[in-house]
């Protein structure tokens, strides 16, 4: 079974990969000279290393862009006291889980449909992918207009069939879910694409063998497609969960965290602190966001990939 997991995102185990630079008695063998690495090393340290360490430092200061004052861990204390933060945290988790879950389910179903023999398959595949290519801000602004409770097309259409639509983005109960809905619409194409790749790589022999054994559609889906597209599921879950945890553009374009603070997520809380000029505080927020994403995604990735080996 192992040989089937072609689309796995997991690198092959260390022993059978041809190592580019094995540790040979302290001195590394490298096909390139030192000078060859220098330009990238300079770019890397100027653009990535320095800012990363600078941000760790600035997260410990009260920073106004003009001057900074070292205040220890006060920023982190203040950040955790922020009333918007609790709401932001729960909203972030809800948003990430809802969007990621829906993308897995919808993506898989769409992929099954789009790998079947239907008319215009290539065209339909690209149609489902189009929203991924459109600018997030553009989508957000468009849906803000469509979801306007009084003049929006969505409530207009619902009104025709006699349903009094809610204030999608203005009702605190709906705002976050409406954004999640749009996020799923926009992002499901990518999940579908990954699933299509996963499903296509399942050898036809399995399906044929299953059919000979008398398996129906549900059985083949349940026993063959679902388990064998596990690597695709892992990819989709991780990608969309990370995306959901740090999602910002769509929320900002559609509600700016509103009404009030009801659709605030961690990123929008941090952004608002930047806007307010609390640079040290918001840098601390970013450090926390980084730690949270790592703390959720690392064990999850380990857990999902371990299961794959036990398949």
């Amino acid at each position, binding site marked *: 079974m192992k040989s089937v997991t072609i689309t796995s995102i997991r690198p092959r185990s260390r022993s059978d990969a041809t190592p580019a630079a094995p540790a040979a008695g302290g001195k590394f063998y490298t096909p390139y000279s030192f000078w*060859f690495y220098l330009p990238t090393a300079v*770019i890397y340290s100027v653009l990535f290393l320095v800012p990363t360490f600078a941000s760790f430092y600035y997260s410990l200061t*009260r920073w106004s862009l*003009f001057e900074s004052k070292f205040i220890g861990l006060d920023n982190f204390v203040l950040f955790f006291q922020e009333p918007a933060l609790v709401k932001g945290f729960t909203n972030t988790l809800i948003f990430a889980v809802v969007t990621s879950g829906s993308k897995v389910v919808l993506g898989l179903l769409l992929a099954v449909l789009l790998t079947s023999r239907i008319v215009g398959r290539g065209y339909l595949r690209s149609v489902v992918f189009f929203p991924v290519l459109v600018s997030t801000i553009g989508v957000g602004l468009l849906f803000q207009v469509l979801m306007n409770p009084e003049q929006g097309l969505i409530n207009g259409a619902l009104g025709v069939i006699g349903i009094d639509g809610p*204030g999608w983005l203005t009702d605190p109960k709906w705002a976050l879910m409406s954004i999640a809905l749009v996020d799923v619409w926009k992002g499901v194409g990518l999940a579908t694409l990954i699933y299509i790749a996963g499903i296509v790589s399942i050898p036809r022999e399995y399906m044929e063998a299953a059919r000979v054994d008398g398996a129906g559609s549900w059985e083949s889906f349940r026993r063959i497609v679902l388990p064998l597209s596990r690597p695709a599921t892992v990819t989709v879950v991780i990608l969309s969960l990370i995306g959901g945890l740090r999602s910002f553009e769509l929320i900002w374009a559609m509600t700016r965290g509103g009404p009030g603070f009801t659709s605030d997520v961690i990123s929008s809380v941090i952004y608002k602190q930047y806007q307010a000029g*609390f640079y040290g505080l918001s840098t601390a927020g970013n450090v926390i966001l980084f730690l949270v994403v790592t703390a959720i995604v690392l064990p999850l990735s380990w857990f999902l990939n371990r299961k794959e080996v036990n398949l």
Partner: protein
Amino acid sequence: MRIGTRSTALAVFAAGTLILSACSAGSLGSSDEGGSGSVSITYLTTNQDQDVKEAEQLAKDFTAKNPGITVKVETRPGGTEGDNIIKTRLSTGDMVDVFNYNTGSLFQAIAPPKNLLPIDDQPYIGDLDENFKKTVTADGKVYGAPVGGFMGGAVLYSIPVYTKLGLKVPTTWSEFMANNAKIKASGDGVAPVIQTYGETWTSQLFVLGDFHNVSAAEPDFADKYTKNEAKYATSPAAVKGFEHTQQVHDLGYENKDFASAKLPDGLKMLATGKGAHYPILSGVVANMIATYPDAAKTVGLFALPGDDAAKNGLTLWTPGGLYIPTTTTGDKLEAAKKFLAFVASPDGCKSQSTAGAPTGPYAVKGCELPADVPQAIKDMQPYLDKPGASSLALEFLSPVKGPSLEQITVEVGSGIRKAKDGAARYDEDVKKQAQQLGLAGW
């Protein structure tokens, strides 16, 4: 291997261009200097229609008086996004020659002594309004020249609605609410109070515009507030603003689409008589009249009513300031100084009045409002003429202003949060700002 060497060259080239472009970015501004006696300066203002029109008119009239100096107008977004742009440009030394920015607490937050050029030595300094000067002073030096007029944070009301129902301009909150009840009961479908939470800043007026009434009841509120001794939640006068915001929602006086409507929707309702009251800054009047010319006669203004009719008065916002950053030097500096002197002169005021209806009286001695000002602006004058009937908004008297007030007032005005709770939350919000500024007592 051939591919290898080529990509090395490419990488080196890429790195080289990066370094080169990093070096030249800072010197871009000075590349267009020189030329035979002609100087060009850049003026940064906000991207609101009316502001752009005004800036372009000023630039045009200034060049007519000072041939050889041209002013290029550049725009930036307003609100917190604009604050960020100003701060970033100042801290990177990338600021234009002259820029327009808020006075009061926001002005204090851009480190004036470090980033701006003092203008104390300029001849027009004596002609500037004292209240205005206070709001652009840091460490005893004046840094800004006024652009635009004073603004009132008040209630704009529909005169036809008032005449039809025989209402009287209210001076107390209970009279105001009685009027609202009558408007609602009239059954014309007129919204008693217009609220437009689609643009969150418009939600703050019941709180910010009420400050004259607060200071009438507690004269030392601003001082105590700066020292962390007075709070919105615990001051009986200050918490009223939040309570009023909640009341108009609880009694169903808001327009039906209050949650999604934006400023232009609100102005339309007011100008067409679909809404009776709109608590807002008088700065929006010019915009409204540009779209609905009739509104010059059909829309009036009164100060936010408080508890005591005798002490009722108008809360004022001072004009914006024009500032010269320390990065402006040489010919451009001279030109920039001349530009400030022009804007802060009667000619400058005249030029601004040509560009559109003024938002209120100017802060420069000798500047007169044109005779045909809209009714709403005319209604401000009695408050200004009567001693003690107007005071500056809190943000000009205290550097403490929290960034989240607009979200909080949206919540209170939408029934998501209670007034008292909202006020307490705002008190928490300002704490960060005060600490950031390093104020004593926080």
